[in-house]
């Protein structure tokens, strides 16, 4: 069974229809890159999956259960489906360690010692163990994003959503974050990654989705999408992308 399944997902903001009839099935261990022009609805789709936005129509299922059901425990669900943001969204009043601990204590009800142990493991995993006592404002962009990834990992998620995790970074810091994401992909996490990093989409993901104007235009393996896309609009987007 699919881990996450979107069927006929729709989202409008007032009159503007941002997502129109999106259907998508994500299996365990899949690493999916989502590409597409600005404004095509990529962030909105991720935010719907995490329920930061409420879908206007259609269904989202997690292990076959509708996440909009009244009975759903929203906190539990969000802990299982983590999200990494373009702007990091770290807690500015906490150290790197506390950022990774607070959710475990409040949401997963872990004991402090256990939570700190888990946080340390994950900070080590993203190469930030040295900085456990640093506050976000004392870190560089790449370091912040790595802490944000560790914060998400500390909740033991099954799925991680990434919304352009490297777009706010200086070029020299993009590599360190992509390297971390690559190790996560290799260790079997299910990932949906909205990205403009075509190298990552090509080499790391096993599926690429091209979105345009609120619909999924093409959904295929990286080699098909990048070498011989079947849909004209995909061709045009990639041609424009690689020309610039």
């Amino acid at each position, binding site marked *: 069974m699919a881990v996450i399944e979107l069927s006929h997902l729709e989202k409008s903001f007032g009159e503007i229809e941002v997502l129109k009839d999106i259907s998508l099935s994500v299996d365990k261990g899949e690493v999916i890159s989502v590409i597409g022009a600005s404004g095509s609805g990529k962030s909105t789709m991720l935010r719907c999956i995490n329920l*930061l936005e409420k879908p206007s129509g259609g269904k989202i299922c997690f292990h076959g259960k509708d996440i909009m059901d009244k009975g759903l425990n929203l906190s539990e669900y969000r802990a299982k489906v983590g999200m990494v943001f373009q702007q*990091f969204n770290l807690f500015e009043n906490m150290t790197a360690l506390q950022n990774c601990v607070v*959710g475990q204590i409040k949401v997963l009800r872990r004991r402090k010692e256990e939570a700190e142990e888990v946080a340390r493991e994950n900070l080590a995993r993203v190469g930030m163990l040295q900085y456990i006592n640093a506050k976000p404002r004392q870190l560089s962009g790449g370091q912040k994003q790595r802490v944000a990834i560790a914060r998400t990992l500390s909740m033991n998620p099954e799925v991680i959503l990434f919304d352009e995790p490297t777009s706010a970074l200086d070029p020299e810091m993009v590599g360190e974050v992509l390297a971390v994401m690559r190790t996560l992909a290799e260790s079997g996490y299910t990932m949906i990654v909205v990205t403009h990093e075509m190298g990552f989409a090509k080499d790391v993901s096993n599926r690429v989705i091209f979105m345009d104007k609120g619909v999924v235009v093409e959904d295929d393996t990286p080699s098909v999408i990048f070498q011989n896309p079947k849909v004209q609009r995909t061709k045009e987007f990639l041609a424009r992308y690689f020309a610039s």
Partner: protein
Amino acid sequence: MSLSFLEKVLFLIERYYPLFLSGMATTMLIAITGTVAGFVIGLVVAVIRTIPVSEHDSKFKKIALAIVKFICVAYIEVFRGTPMMIQAAVFYYGIFMGVNIDLTLAAFVIVSINTGAYMAEIIRGGIISIDKGQTEGAYSIGMNHRQTMTSVVLPQAIRNIMPSVGNEFVVNIKDTSVLNVIGVAELYFQSRSAAGTYAMAFQSFTIAAVIYFFLTFIVTRILRLIERRMDGPKSYVIYGSQTNPDAEIRIKKGGARNGRY
């Protein structure tokens, strides 16, 4: 009898220092308790006013919330929109009429409620100034609104509004003087008594002015210290280094690693 200004001042102090001291004590007591209670009231009102209405909520919750929010807004508008002197008079001669309430207690109630109205808006300003991203970050790991407020938003909001809270405190020290309208024996009231007997108004109120300034000055210094405590250390400790994994490296303000503080 022709005494110099200074001689008259000394004369007043010598003769009436218990009056000035008790006025000072009453003023500080009302200002401190009123500011603290006002802060608590403001915190509650501001937190209520910033509760998000989500589409998931039941109809009952939505309506209840709308009513409570309306009451909060009405409270703020009424108590910011009328002078504290009038509020004191209305409360004391109207609402507390016939109830044998202690004057200082009445003063405390009035100052708290009045301050609460201002604090509510100051704190709400602090809350909405914390960028929405941190709230989403908290939601994304499953934290609920209450947890997000108490762990993430309020600690930062309160730190940021400390200068405004200080303002309110200072205003309260000075504005307790309007409570003489109901006969509270605060500093202004006592200075007026001292001035009356020997017709030394100028001297007596000069003493009062110096005391007011002294009080507000001390309070502002203390608040600055508290702010600095809240900011925490400017440096952090790095654990381990490439060459010596057990070394502790202290990064000082403006350190070489990154100068962003």
